[in-house]
């Protein structure tokens, strides 16, 4: 929005800059998006071309050495001669008026102009193109003022006139970000009103551009019928339609320069007078208009929903299949002319020969337009406005403004017949408790302040009608504020009062909850797990949970493995990774690979996060209403439709886990580090776990995979070395090790308070046994048998040595255990201890075939 336009509608303080206006608008809740223009300093003057010496350079480029009369400026002052300028454009002739920037000037973007030598001669400035001075985007040649402004306007110009003022280049243009509830701010009318509010809404300080004399509908206009047979949510697709006809427009007439300039400043391209007028009025008052070539229309305009199979080629030359939800403007109810509120069709487009124009100003249902816009992926200036709500009070005024402009600048004549079908309903008043804003905002607003602000906003406030009393008034919002018309507008009015009164007056009061139970057990447990792994030397990372479908094959998962059942993203960022992970490891390996690729050789990582386990195809989640709380059954159905998302942790390591140093060589991470990682976590949570080998759990090495369970057999997870094939498929180094476990299982298992076992203070008795076992026997089984055989007095058992080699039978291992015995009530005798030991050994022999050495 150019400040000059704003200043036509509301009073700008003397010298207010774009930044000042932006700050004022921010104070009433309109965010500044960008500020441009106003960054050009002269001299920039009108010049008349006196001489042109045409040359073609060696590179084929035409170059003109020009002499330009720039009045009492430049070389005229310093050397007593006309300005000599070298120019690369050829779209002008001797005698033309052009725009000349002289040495010392600075163009937008900080481009400083000085006299310089180019193509062999001194060039004392530059003849400007539109884009060089921030006037437009045109760079097809330099500006010829007769063409830009018209011969009439140009006739009054003298060489040396200030071109900055002439072209409005000092005008700053402010872009604001309009939130979805403020559709009326997508117009200079709305923004000016907000600016006026920001200045305290001074009396007489706002001149509504939509207040114009408008003839009433009179039946003589172009026939229009509204025939919406399928309103969405009970709202008719169109509740107001104004049609006006202007005949005899001279198609040769250009759009006036000032209008072109404003359109350009607002980011729109001038096209033709009829189209430019509709756009200009839209920018001014926020009402999208459409201009039809009257000659292409055969009968009445009928507004209806689309029929199956209908198509329309829109102005952007795309043939669009229409859907029954689309609201159409049709010719006689048959031929579609436009998708209402979104885009017109090519067939009724205003063309270079159009002389009779039908101007449509209508009010369309926001939902209808939003759906069509989304379905056809067509966001237009019109759809943006209709979606957010257009003021149904300006329909006729907007049409009138357009008619007036077409008459004035196109030489047309308006038809006396005016069509104005108005099905809009009057809005009912809301009984507002005037203390409500204070209660919601926390600032004390006296009644008069509340009423005053609402009136400034354009609300009708009745203080004496039925239902009003010393605490209540009846408020009817203005037509441009559909957002204030919901079923509970008190907070909206509170926001308006707070906004206009100033948010800066809201104090800061720290809320004081009455009780808090701290973190839950699960939340604490999760931190403990993360901290334990970090303390054990693993670095926490967070990977994207998007994985390739091939990951299941890379892992070597069996066909019926539940980890193959993954949720698929319908619109993935990368088609190569459409699935959500079912294990943390499947995405953590990406991070490992990235670290290795960056030259880290020894990497130990972990991640804690959710995985997605749908267990099958997704069930459709219900979409209950929002008018009240869904019933219990609906809620349960809703919750149940959301797939299982257990929280899991994965650990992975490659390379050395202990570094080489003065103490000796380093130690490569192996399967046992992974078992230890899980055991560390379990120990931190005081959860006893069991470890057994699992020869059949991809992606682990069948001979180096531990299955870790709770003592009741519940699976916690797996740990060990990864399968060589999986490592090859995943492009990871050999011997990479990993663990993955279910945090929810460990959390649940650690929830109950630890119950302390009593312990003896009598002296311990230690005894060692060495057992020879066959290679296939698991140490854990031997230990379990020893424990079982040793009896109650066994306090501790430690496997302190494992030997395999020449001194014993081939394919056997010697396991050396230290047993610690202690009785609760006495010092044990040697005979007793020996007895326990022998019983333990006997149990191990029985269970595992172990032989004492």
């Amino acid at each position, binding site marked *: 929005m150019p400040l000059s336009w704003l200043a036509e509608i509301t009073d700008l303080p003397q010298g207010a800059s774009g930044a000042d206006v932006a700050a004022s608008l921010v104070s009433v809740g309109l965010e500044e998006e960008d500020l441009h223009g106003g960054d050009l300093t002269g001299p920039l003057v009108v010049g008349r071309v006196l001489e042109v010496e045409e040359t073609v350079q060696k590179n084929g480029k035409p170059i003109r050495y020009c002499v330009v009369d720039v009045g009492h400026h430049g070389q005229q002052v310093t050397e007593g001669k006309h300005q000599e300028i070298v120019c690369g454009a050829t779209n002008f002739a001797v005698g033309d008026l052009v725009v000349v920037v002289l040495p010392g000037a600075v163009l937008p973007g900080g481009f400083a102009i000085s006299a310089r030598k180019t193509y062999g001669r001194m060039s004392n400035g530059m003849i400007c193109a539109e884009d060089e001075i921030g006037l437009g985007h045109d760079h097809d040649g330099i500006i010829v003022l007769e063409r830009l402004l018209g011969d009439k306007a140009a006739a009054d110009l003298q060489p040396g006139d200030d071109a900055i003022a002439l072209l409005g280049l000092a005008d700053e243009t402010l872009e604001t970000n309009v939130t979805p509830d403020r559709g009326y701010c997508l117009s200079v009318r709305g923004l000016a009103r907000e600016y006026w509010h920001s200045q305290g809404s001074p009396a007489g300080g706002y001149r509504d551009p939509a207040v114009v004399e408008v003839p009433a509908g009179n039946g003589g206009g172009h026939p229009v019928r509204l025939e919406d047979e399928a309103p969405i949510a009970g709202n008719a697709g169109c509740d107001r339609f104004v049609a006006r006809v202007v005949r005899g427009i001279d198609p040769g007439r250009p759009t006036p320069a000032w209008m072109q300039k404003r359109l350009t400043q607002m980011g729109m391209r001038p096209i033709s007078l009829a189209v430019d007028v509709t756009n200009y009025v839209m920018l001014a008052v926020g009402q999208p208009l459409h201009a039809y070539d009257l000659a292409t229309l055969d009968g009445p305009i009928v507004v209806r929903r689309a029929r199956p199979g209908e198509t329309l080629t829109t102005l952007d030359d795309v043939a669009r299949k229409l859907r029954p939800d689309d609201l159409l403007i049709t010719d006689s109810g048959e031929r579609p002319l436009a998708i209402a509120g979104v885009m017109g069709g090519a067939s009724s487009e205003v063309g270079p020969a159009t002389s009779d124009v039908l101007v449509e100003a209508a009010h369309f249902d926001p939902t209808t337009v939003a759906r069509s816009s989304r379905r056809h992926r067509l966001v237009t200036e019109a759809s943006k406005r209709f979606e957010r709500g257009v003021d149904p009070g300006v329909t006729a005024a907007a049409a009138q403004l357009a008619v007036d402009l077409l008459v004035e600048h196109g030489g047309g004549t308006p038809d006396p017949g005016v069509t104005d079908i108005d099905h809009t309903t009057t809005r009912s008043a809301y009984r507002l408790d005037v203390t409500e804003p204070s209660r919601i905002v926390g600032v004390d607003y006296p009644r008069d302040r509340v009423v005053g602000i609402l009136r400034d906003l354009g609300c009708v406030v009745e203080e004496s009608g039925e239902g009003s009393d010393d605490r209540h008034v009846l408020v009817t919002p203005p037509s441009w504020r559909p957002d204030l018309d919901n079923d509970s507008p008190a907070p909206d009015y509170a926001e308006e009062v707070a906004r206009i009164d100033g948010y800066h007056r809201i104090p*800061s009061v720290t809320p004081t909850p009455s009780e808090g139970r701290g973190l839950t057990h699960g939340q604490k447990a999760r931190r403990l797990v993360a901290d334990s792994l*970090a303390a054990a030397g693993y670095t926490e990372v967070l990977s*994207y949970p998007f994985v390739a479908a091939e990951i299941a094959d890379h892992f070597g998962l069996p066909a019926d493995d539940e980890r193959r059942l993954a949720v698929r993203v319908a619109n993935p960022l990368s088609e190569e990774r459409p699935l959500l992970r079912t294990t943390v490891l499947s995405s953590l390996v990406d991070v490992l690979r990235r670290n290795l690729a960056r030259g880290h050789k020894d990497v130990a990582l972990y991640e804690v996060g959710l995985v997605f386990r749908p267990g099958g195809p997704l069930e459709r989640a219900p979409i209950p209403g*929002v008018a009240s709380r869904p019933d219990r059954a609906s809620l349960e159905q809703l919750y149940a439709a959301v797939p299982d998302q257990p929280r899991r942790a994965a650990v992975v390591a490659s390379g050395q886990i202990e570094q080489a140093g003065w103490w000796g060589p380093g130690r490569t991470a192996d399967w046992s580090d992974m078992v230890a990682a899980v055991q560390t976590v379990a120990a931190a949570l005081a959860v006893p776990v069991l470890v057994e080998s699992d020869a059949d759990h991809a992606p682990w090495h069948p001979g180096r995979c531990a299955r870790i369970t709770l003592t009741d057999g519940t699976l916690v997870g797996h740990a060990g070395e990864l399968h060589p094939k999986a490592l090859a498929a995943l492009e990871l180094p050999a011997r990479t090790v990993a663990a993955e476990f279910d945090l929810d299982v460990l959390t649940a298992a650690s929830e109950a308070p630890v119950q302390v076992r009593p312990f003896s203070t009598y002296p311990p008795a230690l005894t060692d046994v060495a057992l020879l076992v066959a290679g296939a026997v698991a140490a854990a089984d031997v230990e379990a048998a020893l424990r079982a055989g040793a009896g109650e007095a066994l306090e501790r058992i430690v496997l302190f040595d494992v030997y395999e080699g020449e001194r014993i039978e081939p394919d056997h291992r010697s396991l050396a255990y230290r047993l610690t015995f202690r009785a609760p009530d006495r010092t044990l005798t040697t005979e007793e201890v020996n007895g326990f030991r022998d019983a333990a050994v006997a149990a191990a022999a029985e269970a595992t075939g172990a032989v004492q050495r």
Partner: protein
Amino acid sequence: MSAPNSNYDPVEVSALDPANVDAALADALAAVAGATDLDDLKTVRIAHQGDKSPLALANREIGALPPTAKAEAGKRVGQARGKLGQAFAARQSVLEAERDERILVDERVDVSVPALRRRPGARHPIELTAQRLVDAFVGMGWEVAEGPELESEWLNFDALNLGPDHPARQMQDTFFLDPVDSGLVLRTQTSPVQIRTMLEQEPPIYIVAPGKVYRTDDLDATHTPVFHQIECLAIDKGLTMAHLRGALDAFVRIMFGPDTRTRVRANYFPFTEPSMETDFLCFVCHGAETWGTAEQCRTCGGSGWIELGGSGMVNRKVLRTCGIDPDVYSGFAFGLGIERALMLRHGVQGMHEMVEGDIRFSQQFGMGA
């Protein structure tokens, strides 16, 4: 050396001559003093205190003296031996101390060599930042709520007053799940956690909800398809926008230090009514307007203020959808992107560092930060 006297014949024994005793003592003392280490002292001890030392011999001669002379000679020799004994003890402890000292010196090592055999691990700073905020709110009596990342569309949108046709729903770039009409999405915000809490819990509610959220943005310096939010929700009797501002002030002080404070202005968010946009005083330049100057603050871009994000009073429609009577209870909600907080507080340059998982990033933060 003469033999012990075996009779009462008063023979002058030269060893007992006072001059000789004094000379022997002086010799011995000199030798003790000259001993440079414990071995040396041992040799000296044998020579001057041993059985064959002059003073030992002199002592033995005493028995041969007539009874009248015994006392005097005994006293003289005894004193000399006593002095010598003390000198030995003193020298012994000096030399022992010297030896102990020397051992410690000899055992010196270079403690500057690397000591960590296992490289320390680290927590991810996003998790740490979330914890920091969570802990502060828990300390004020709030509780932590969590929910699924794959969420029902109703909980992510509809219940938050983002109906199917709401323009704000278009602002969101949502990951939909296959099939697209499944009614399930990857949550675009942590707000569905608030809805779940309000649906299942009676007010008063004071919750802080940290978590992962998803939007279909490609990774670049300022965007990532997976990021983290933390949102706070309070529902109680009598809560106003002033309480909201108070909570926001607490929030920014926790995150950016005690000297910062908020500045608020109007804005629009569908979930809240009235809504509020919050900036906070730059914790680096403390609000100095440095824009366009050589000292332009890099943290706030020179404006002196940093945008925090949207907030507001929970929309009455949302309360009703959750079964909470908006005539009895009111509440507020606000949130922040954790990545952004991390960028601001720790000078992280872009999203890449936070999402790539390069160990050099997390390791700078240790387990606390």
